[in-house]
């Protein structure tokens, strides 16, 4: 049990995907303008990343390893994740309009976002089991969601702040992201990985 807790803690805080691994920067900067859209994105990422890590584990174990095709990891993972996400988007559209309203626009956007593919590839690298890889995917997405929501909150405030002329817009956003990354470095002693 403590192993699972450690995986979660390390994925959320210590090895945060955005702030220490620099994956998923594009949605991090792109949809963090408003807290509301950031929340939708965070939920979609949570969903897709958990799904992607389990699906890619299955592909790895039952297709790639038996046929000795490990060099085709990337393309197999992209294919399987893209298909799954598209399929589930249609399923949600049919079955739950409310959920579709919340996630619908974001699902296709992150089909093979680098963070999503990254979690699949890192799982394979670290030779996780099925449970731990699902947990790692979920934890990483949770970390992404945490950072995205924090950042969106910060940016909403910065919009109102008297920012010096030269720093307005993306400049101050990038500086804020950098400061957040610095702050998250404080967690690095928490877990030894």
């Amino acid at each position: 049990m403590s192993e699972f807790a450690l995986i979660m803690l390390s994925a959320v805080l210590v090895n945060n995907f955005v702030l220490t691994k620099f994956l998923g920067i594009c949605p991090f900067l792109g949809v963090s303008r408003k807290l509301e859209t950031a929340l939708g994105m965070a939920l979609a990422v949570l969903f897709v990343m958990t799904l992607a890590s389990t699906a890619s584990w299955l592909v790895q174990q039952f297709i790639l390893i038996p046929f000795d095709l490990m060099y085709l990891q990337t393309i197999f993972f992209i294919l399987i994740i893209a298909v799954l996400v598209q399929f589930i988007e249609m399923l949600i559209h049919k079955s739950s309009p409310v959920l579709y309203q919340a996630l619908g626009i974001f699902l296709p956007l992150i089909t093979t976002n680098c963070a999503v593919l990254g979690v699949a590839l890192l799982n394979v690298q670290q030779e996780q089991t099925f449970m731990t890889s699902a947990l790692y995917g979920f934890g990483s997405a949770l970390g992404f969601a945490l950072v995205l929501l924090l950042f969106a909150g910060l940016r909403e405030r910065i919009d109102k702040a008297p920012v010096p002329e030269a720093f307005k817009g993306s400049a101050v956003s990038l500086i804020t992201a950098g400061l957040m990354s610095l702050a998250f470095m404080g967690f690095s002693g928490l877990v030894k990985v």
Partner: protein
Amino acid sequence: MNILVAVLLLGGLALVAGIVLAFASRAFHVEGDPMAERIDAALPQTQCGQCGYPGCKPYAAAVANGEADVNKCVPGGERAMLTIADLMGVPPKEVEEEAAPPMLAFIREDECIGCTLCIKACPVDAIIGAPKQYHTVVEDHCTGCTLCVEPCPVDCIEMVGKPEVLEEWTWSAPGKSRAKATDPSEGEANAGAA
């Protein structure tokens, strides 16, 4: 041999995935508003959001519900607008361009009789002067509202293009020529104001 297995596996998986998706799109097809779908088909699908909706589909739905005007799609231009107006059975409207370039009021002082009517009309107190004295416009305060043009008994107030300054300059939207943004009536009027 190995490469054949790889090709077959990847191709097979892709084929299966394609078939599954094709069936899913049939099985899970959601009946949308047919009008919204036809309007959506006429839109350029750039999902640019310039219409004020999060994408082409939401805009199409809003038009179909009668909530939005037919002329909000800037990338679609006149063609998309005409198609949509035709579908909706409403008269075509000119596609909204960007807002007109900012203007400033300018008083030709040698014609001004000092009646103070324009001073009273100005909502932002941007015109200074006194009875029987020339009036003039404080450029920094003028909002270009044109309310002062009408009251002037000698018609000595005109609207001129606001000179572009670095503080307010921005990149023009792609596809729009910059020449359009600058006002043709610069020249001596502007030089006099400055």
